[in-house]
């Protein structure tokens, strides 16, 4: 960039400050749409391969692998509760209620950590080696990518919580909390897909 130009730029009419509200909201929504498409592609690839195998008269899950339902269902409940608390945090921030916002963020984090722990426990129960079969790669890719997204969401909420503690947010400035809630909603939505596709349908 250079400042050498000898003439003034035109367009000298005084203008109001351009509307920049919702900038973060739109960016997070677009990023979420992008992640959603990517994850649904994974699901599509998974279902396509599953259908091919079933068409050959074989079972999808490898021999000896069992997916219990208790853990996935509890994980689903955790996700639903975390969704409520994530939006509770947003509503509290919007109402300048910092203490409620902190409680809601903490609960979301609690549910989030609980979800991650339950996922690892479920994987240990499934007793399925990643290299054992071609199916396991597809199953792990769906669970693994969701887990990575979940960890990213947790990191995001941790940062939002810290910023809430230091008083960054108010009823005038809550875009980041809203963005965080939208991203968490995406994670919960994707879990509902994962829950039905892998854990229920098997």
């Amino acid at each position, binding site marked *: *960039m250079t400042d050498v130009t000898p003439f*003034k730029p035109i*367009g000298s*009419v005084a*203008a109001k400050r*351009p509307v920049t509200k919702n*900038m973060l909201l739109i960016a997070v929504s677009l990023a979420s749409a992008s992640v959603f498409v990517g*994850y649904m592609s994974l699901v599509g*690839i998974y279902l396509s391969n599953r259908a091919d195998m079933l068409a050959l008269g074989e079972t999808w899950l490898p021999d000896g692998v069992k997916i219990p339902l208790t853990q996935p269902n509890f994980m689903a409940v955790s996700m639903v509760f975390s969704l409520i608390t994530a939006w509770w945090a947003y509503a509290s921030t919007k109402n300048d209620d910092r203490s409620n916002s902190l409680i809601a963020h903490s609960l979301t984090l609690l549910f989030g950590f609980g979800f991650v722990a339950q996922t690892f426990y479920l994987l240990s129960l499934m007793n399925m080696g990643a290299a054992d079969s071609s199916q396991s790669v597809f199953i792990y890719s769906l669970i693994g990518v969701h887990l990575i997204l979940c960890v990213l969401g947790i990191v995001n909420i941790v940062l939002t919580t810290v910023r809430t503690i230091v008083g960054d947010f108010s009823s005038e400035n809550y875009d980041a909390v809203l963005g965080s809630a939208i991203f968490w909603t995406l994670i919960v939505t994707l879990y509902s897909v994962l829950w039905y596709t892998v854990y229920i349908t098997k």
Partner: protein
Amino acid sequence: MNTEQSKKSSGLVAFLNATDHKEIGRFFISGSALVLFASIVGALVSVYEASNLNKLNVVEDTDQYIQLWSISREALLFGGLIPFLVGLAVYLVPLQTGVSNLAFPRGLAASFWTWLLGLIIFVCAYLMNGGPAGGREDFILLWILSLAMMISGLIWAMINVITTLLVSRAQGMSLDKVPFTSWSFLVFCFFGILILPILIAELAISYLQVKYGQIPVSDSQSLLAIVTPLLRAPFVFWIGIPVLGIGADIIGVHTERPVKRVRPFMMLIGFVGLLSAAGGFGFFNSQRTLENEWFVFVSSTLIFLSILFAIALPIASLIKGKRTLNPAMLGILSSGILLLVAADISILDLFASVNDSVDINPLTLNTFDPEQINGSVLSIEGAVNYGAAFILVIGSVMLTLLASAHHWSTKLWGRQLSRSLSFISVVAALVGSLTWALANIMSSLSSTPSEVAGATFDNSSEIFGDLAVAGCLLLAGSAILFLANLASMSSMKIVGSKPTAWEGLTLEWATASPPVKGNFATKPVVKSAVPLTEDVFVADLVELESAESMPALNSGSEV
């Protein structure tokens, strides 16, 4: 540290800390121009090797050939064409919409560095025998990661462009008053963030498959299939979306007659984006069969019609407006025609391909013996001519980039690109892409798919091979000329230009060339899609016209 060293380090620090959209846009454009050239050279060697086996001996075996072919097409797409378009979008969108920077400047810098780092790792992975048909598992995995990094960087830059366009436009600029170029970038980026994640998903699965032995290193050629859908109709037309918007702006400016039917034109651009993405989703990751072919056929036909009408609207300006011939006009007109021909070929191709299954190499000719490459490696069922359509789309986008660089060169670099070099470069790109595509078409017409699949190559295809090499050489020559043009310009003094250069009508012409920091002294207010015709801007322009220190461009009015 002496003064010179401190100057250098401050330059490096400034380079690393850059967050201005103009700087990052230039980085994207310069970097991708170099990669574009390198990838065309790679494609040239690949074509030469395929059509003249054992003559050049750059590659020693089939695996190396596949690696060369693979790196050419991936670098062409994710290192060259798409980043160049993203760079243009990053540079032009804030200027055209009257804002000082993109929505997230640091995010923009992060997207560039992610892309660049991915690109460096991508090249290293290939050099270390990675990539499809690579022999080392670690570097095959690294190739997958690097490709995902490059795509992620591009997606993030696209999100930034969309957010800016949706949220931070100048006061009074509703979406239907956004310049065509910015509108086409909006459509391009919007569908980009929906199309590219599919590739990342495929890469994620492939990573695990390679990592856990489901795809053994000996069968790593199958990884070629990941990128292939993006090269085929209707997906491939997504890359061509900016051609339409940039074309309308350039034609409107140089004929001094802007496109009249703004909303229909914008809808047509959106329609091309929607169809290319929707049509692509229909057969992504599945084989071409009669069941899903109709979907591709319908979307390809509608894309053809949309492009036809989208080209017809600016043509009206061409007929009724001022007749001007300069590199920008020649480039943009040629690019529109190439895009239309590509759409036409992709429809005709579908008629020919429904019942055929043939191994095709989209960048080279159909002359490589499929038996040598393990049958399934390049097993892309269906299209005979999709290689030709892909080449024409590449040519179209390249011509658009050359035309854009000439048209906006004073905005981009503060200097005017050489008119003669730009002309030669545009002509070389046009003839080169036509020749290369023609070689593919003739090759497929001269031999039936079954003959191609069963034979090594015959005399007729060798002729077409030479033709393809000639086309490829011309394209490489065009890229060299463009780089030489850029290099020669760097020695010139920054002269700037009148804001009214080319008689531009959109906001980027309402600021200095190159634009000042922050782009505009005050935030502009607009009332129409052509703000520079509005009274307030005209008054300023008249004042500026009298400024003696502003040399006018002299290449915008030749007949």
